[in-house]
């Protein structure tokens, strides 16, 4: 009996539990592998098809009975056409104009969205002050109570404050330091030891020194993850821009509005879509391990 137990123990703990799949587990993991593989192929196929279609001539695409047919030639002229011909039909913004809008929108939006909640999360988790519990409770309440329809009054407010259709709206919107990201930072800073800060205090460091030299560097991996995912989200954003900043169409917005004009030349439109994917894919390919860095969220009780 003792021998069997010993044998069992060795069997399990001599390999890494995360990677060792034995017995029935092997079947579960094989089935999971097949399902993942099939699904991942199904996710990639449309992008590949879109890329191949972007290499077709408009006539070839329009007259073909089989949309899955490979292009007769690999013509990259559509890509040149996309740069020249695609524009936002509502504002007449050129392709490069839309790229410019996407760039400043992305950096501003992602930068503020990762930085402001970090500051509030730090102060709320590390400092005790009058009203702290109240602020926290109100923030959680605002996050967990579904208030519907305030979009209309927000729009009215933007008009009243002259923020509608201006980039300043983005700056103002970025001042929001609460929400889901705040909760993540709050949980993170709760777990960060205060001992380094104490050492800095003894050396005469003030709260700003502690924040910028000790605490923020520790939060950099999370900030980086939020910045990257936020940047990708902002690059791809269309709805809020259509609603609040229609005069500043980004590439995503322009491609959306151009859609109805593209019916006769879908390959050029697809080329534009492929071009719009490149920056996010490059960022993702470069920083995928950073993006996949563990981010965790705690409870909302409070």
């Amino acid at each position: 009996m003792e021998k069997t137990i010993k044998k069992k123990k060795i069997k399990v703990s001599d390999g890494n539990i995360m990677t060792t799949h034995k017995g029935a587990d092997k079947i579960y993991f094989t089935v999971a592998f097949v399902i993942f593989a099939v699904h991942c192929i199904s996710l990639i196929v449309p992008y590949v098809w879109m890329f191949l279609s972007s290499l077709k001539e408009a006539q070839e695409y329009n007259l073909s009975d089989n949309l899955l047919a490979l292009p007769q030639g690999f013509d990259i002229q559509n890509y040149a056409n996309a740069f020249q011909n695609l524009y936002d039909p509502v504002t007449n913004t050129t392709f490069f104009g839309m790229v410019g809008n996407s760039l400043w929108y992305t950096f501003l939006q992602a930068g503020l969205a990762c930085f402001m909640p970090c500051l509030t999360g730090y102060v709320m988790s590390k400092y005790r002050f009058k009203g702290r519990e109240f602020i926290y409770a109100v923030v959680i309440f605002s996050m967990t109570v579904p208030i519907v329809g305030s979009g209309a009054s927000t729009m009215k407010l933007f008009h009243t404050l002259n923020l509608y259709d201006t980039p300043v709206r983005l700056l103002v919107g970025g001042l929001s330091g609460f929400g889901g990201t705040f909760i993540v930072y709050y949980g993170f800073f709760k777990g960060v030891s205060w001992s380094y800060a104490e050492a800095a205090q003894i050396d005469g460091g003030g709260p700003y020194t502690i924040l910028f030299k000790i605490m923020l560097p520790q939060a950099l991996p999370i900030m980086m993850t939020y910045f990257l995912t936020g940047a990708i989200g902002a690059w791809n954003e269309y709805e809020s821009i259509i609603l609040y900043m229609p005069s500043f169409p980004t590439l995503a917005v322009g491609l959306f509005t151009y859609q109805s004009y593209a019916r006769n030349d879908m390959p050029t439109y697809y080329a534009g879509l492929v071009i719009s994917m490149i920056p996010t894919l490059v960022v993702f390919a470069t920083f995928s391990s950073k993006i996949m860095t563990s981010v965790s969220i705690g409870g909302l009780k409070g």
Partner: protein
Amino acid sequence: MKAENSSAKKQNLSASSGKKNRLIDKIFIVSILILPITYFLIFWLYANLQSFMMAFQLPTGEWSLVTMKSVFENFKQKDSNIWISVRNTSLYFVKDLLLMPFHVVIAYFLFRKVRGYKVFQVILYLPAMVSGVVVVTAFKAFVSPDMLRSLGFEALELLNRSDTATPTILVYSIWLGWAGNMLLLGGAMARIPVEVLESARLDGINTPREIVYMIFPLLWNTLSTFLILQLTGIFGAGGPILLFANGNPNQKISTIGYWIFEKIKYTGASAYNEVSATGLVFTVVGVPIILFLRRLIEKVPTVDY
């Protein structure tokens, strides 16, 4: 007021320097929180109060119950756009709820390093990286009658018929939604002490039981947060309706979120009061239910590790 775990006493600081430090701390806290709090007061508190008042006003600003009455009239018509939006939003919400355990299972297999997990992780996350405009365009091309014909199926106008448009968008959301909360769930699983899982393995637990009896309870803290946030966002549930909408009224794909968007964007200021009044009705109906459900969720004990 003091910094958490402060060892001011240990440092034997003089009373005056302690006061000075407290003042600096106060200035620091105010300087950090003043802008977010001001933003919150204006764009959350004031915006919601104004929305409440707008529900009882006419677009001209006069106080009146006419807007609220017309909202109730809208609700009385069973085939009205708002009812279609409520029905579709409920469908998306139920889909999201049902997918949550599925997301845990997916995250579990990736966490347990199923073969090729790194590649799968990247590909599953791909739709979140690429603009919805791109993904929806590709999807629409694949469900277009021409493509269906090319694939050997009947050439149906799936996105133009009321009986197939919403189910097609639901399929789209499910197809793309495998990576839902993958990062946060993966992060939560990575925090589970490996010894806990190892000891369960020593006791002979298999994969399904590990997921049900170990992973779910250990993740409850994170899952309950997702559930609460999902409940809070119940009225905003939906897919990228704007990208699927093609102006054809036969689509009947509207959701509450899209209905609000459409009214604000295309109808303009004359619809603001109607949006606020409809929103108020949803809020009044939804808040008690959601607060009750939140209480229930919070009663389930969480595991600290």
